[in-house]
């Protein structure tokens, strides 16, 4: 956990989360298999997000889900879940834990700040609490999850330095 910036009503912290990317058809069998491994039910509505104190489970599109662990788990456990899921021919689960970076964005001006980097419509009516989106932020592909009062943004790790520089750059201007 690293505090990246805190100014002008925006707080950004880098976090170490873990993640599994799951593909499947979302039908009954899928739900059962997934539910056996993960205590949360996979959300059924596109862009919907379920959460408990441990993780976020979000549906990214009709056949893709992301599971983000907000509290660091034993990596072995995560790999076990993945391999158990993959026992099923009709599911593909890939480990997204350490190839991604995670940023938590808070503060009253977070929308205005992020809208310097993305045209994505962050208004409540278009992007309600407990939903997610995949979009471009600072010209790179990002996932953005909206929880009460905060966003979690993740992107590929190779962009980490670039993305951090762009965030800090804007606060200084």
């Amino acid at each position, binding site marked *: 956990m690293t505090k990246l910036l805190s100014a002008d009503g925006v707080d950004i912290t880098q976090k170490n989360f873990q993640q599994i990317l799951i593909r499947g058809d979302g039908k009954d069998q899928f739900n059962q298999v997934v539910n056996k491994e993960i205590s949360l039910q996979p959300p059924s509505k596109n862009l919907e997000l379920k959460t408990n104190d441990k993780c976020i489970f979000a549906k*990214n599109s009709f056949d893709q889900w992301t599971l983000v662990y907000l509290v660091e788990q034993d990596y072995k456990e995560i790999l076990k879940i993945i391999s158990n899921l993959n026992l099923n021919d009709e599911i593909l689960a890939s480990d997204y834990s350490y190839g991604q970076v995670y940023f938590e964005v808070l503060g009253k001006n977070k929308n205005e700040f992020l809208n310097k980097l993305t045209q994505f419509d962050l208004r409540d009516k278009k992007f309600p609490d407990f939903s997610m*989106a995949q979009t471009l932020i600072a010209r790179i592909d990002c996932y953005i999850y909206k929880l009460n009062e905060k966003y979690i943004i993740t992107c590929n790790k190779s962009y980490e330095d670039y993305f951090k520089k762009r965030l800090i750059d804007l606060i200084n201007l």
Partner: protein
Amino acid sequence: MILINCPYCGEREQSEFTNGGEAHVIRPKDPDILNDKDWGQYVFYRSNPKGIFYERWVHTHGCRKWFNVVRDTSTDTILKIYKLTDNKPDISEFQSTLKSPSGEPIVGSGNFAVKK
């Protein structure tokens, strides 16, 4: 910049998407039985109408899903968006928007500024 209503993610700016050209072009089931000319038609020829166009888009910087769009290429107005699994809408649904022989409506095409 047009706004496209991704059937899975909602309205996003066109720059998040990639156009995939004409829709409903089916890949030949048995390419080997085609002659060079017919195969060439599949590989290189696509419709290019001025007016109603059935086309494919993919939400490259979002969910990465493909879907179909009916767009008036003379105004860039999107008339309908539907999933790949949906039926192709009939052209008669949209034809009322056409105004001139080459498919140019009076408002929106940019070639008319003054009302006569």
